[in-house]
């Protein structure tokens, strides 16, 4: 193996490493060049989540599954989906999709914002609950 080829390979390594650390300067979080921000943000006492709940014919609340809400088994993806829908004003579409995805004959679905106190037990009711959108089965 010639020194020239070694030098070329070493240069490639250095270039790759520079690209990987470039988010320190650019702040860009992409894939696979990322700032690696997972769990980096310290949480305050209260955290707000966007989620959805179903209603049966009697008007009783039906707890929906992760698959029904987000069409995924990953809460990170479901959360991102709902937050993006709220930001882009497309909660109506997401709500209809949840209604269609569920096979439990729901009468209605509400997309809601819930705020929880992270310092108290999780079975406590949310500190705040706001209905963002409601859609009904046709």
């Amino acid at each position: 193996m010639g020194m020239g080829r070694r030098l070329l390979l070493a240069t490639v390594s250095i270039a790759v490493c520079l690209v990987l650390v470039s988010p320190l300067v650019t702040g860009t979080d992409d894939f696979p060049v990322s700032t690696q921000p997972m769990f980096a943000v310290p949480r305050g006492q209260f955290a707000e989540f966007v989620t959805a709940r179903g209603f049966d014919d009697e008007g009783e609340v039906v707890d929906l599954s992760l698959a029904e809400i987000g069409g995924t088994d990953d809460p990170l993806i479901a959360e991102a989906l709902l937050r993006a829908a709220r930001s882009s004003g497309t909660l109506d579409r997401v709500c209809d999709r949840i209604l269609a995805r569920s096979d439990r004959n729901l009468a209605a679905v509400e997309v809601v914002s819930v705020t929880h106190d992270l310092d108290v037990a999780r079975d406590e009711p949310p500190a705040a609950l706001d209905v963002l959108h409601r859609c009904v089965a046709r």
Partner: protein
Amino acid sequence: MFFTGASPDETARRAMTPVRRTAITATPVTWLTPSISERVLARWRVWAGVVLCGYLLVRVVALTQAPTRWEPVVYLRWLDAPLPVVVLWGLWVVALFGSLVWVRPVESVRWLPVVGGLAILVLFGHRSSGGQILWFDILPALHVGALLAAGGRFDAVRSGWALRLASLMTVITYVLAGIAKLRLGGLDWVSDGALERNISFSATRFEVLGGTPSPFATLFADLGFLSVPLGISVIAIELGAPLALVNRRIARVWALAAWVMHVGIAATMFVIFHWPLLGAAFLPLLLIAERPEHDAVS
């Protein structure tokens, strides 16, 4: 010769001599391109293939699902919309067989690992194009890239180079994660209750979105006094990753500490970083840090 000023005889003698100086004190070029046996790279390639096969099988639904939103990652920007499901299935099949050939090379399909590796990169990138970067897929994708760069026909220097590059990728991703915590959270990240709240946030998110949080999240809340020391440990492990490049002993200690950290994350938050949990993230560091005289090639 141009770089060393050595005579032709000296250059020829050096070409016949195994490169043994892979310690961090070696010259930068030699350190970045150590000579190792193909067998050493093969150990990592086989294990990476096993882990990738398992991951592809376990995550088949997620990987073959077209996202409802489309925010393509940097190398999929040329796609205007998600790939059709049939194409995703095709990529998944190619990726699976490519990974299998990494585990058990087949001479007649030497192209398959390369095509399979590219399919894996597309599938992982595609999945992170649904509006949420999936950070746990980043290091596997980078390592697949390193294995692809190593090429199909390995030689001693190219094997060592790919393994060193992969170990640098591991180190850099951990250091960036540590820096992100200090940048976004500062000392608040290791203050009283910060880690506890992160775990509580993760568990609450699971619950409100219809999932089942880890029972250890509640247990951790009862052991809140651990929050500060464990928070400091996480930062120390992440920022201390470059130490793993120094020698084999430190590499082992660091890899064990990082692995335990991931076990803790998995146990309390149900966030599975499969690549480090199954050792594939750390294997390049551990293999390259082995005594070179055992595997050096003459």
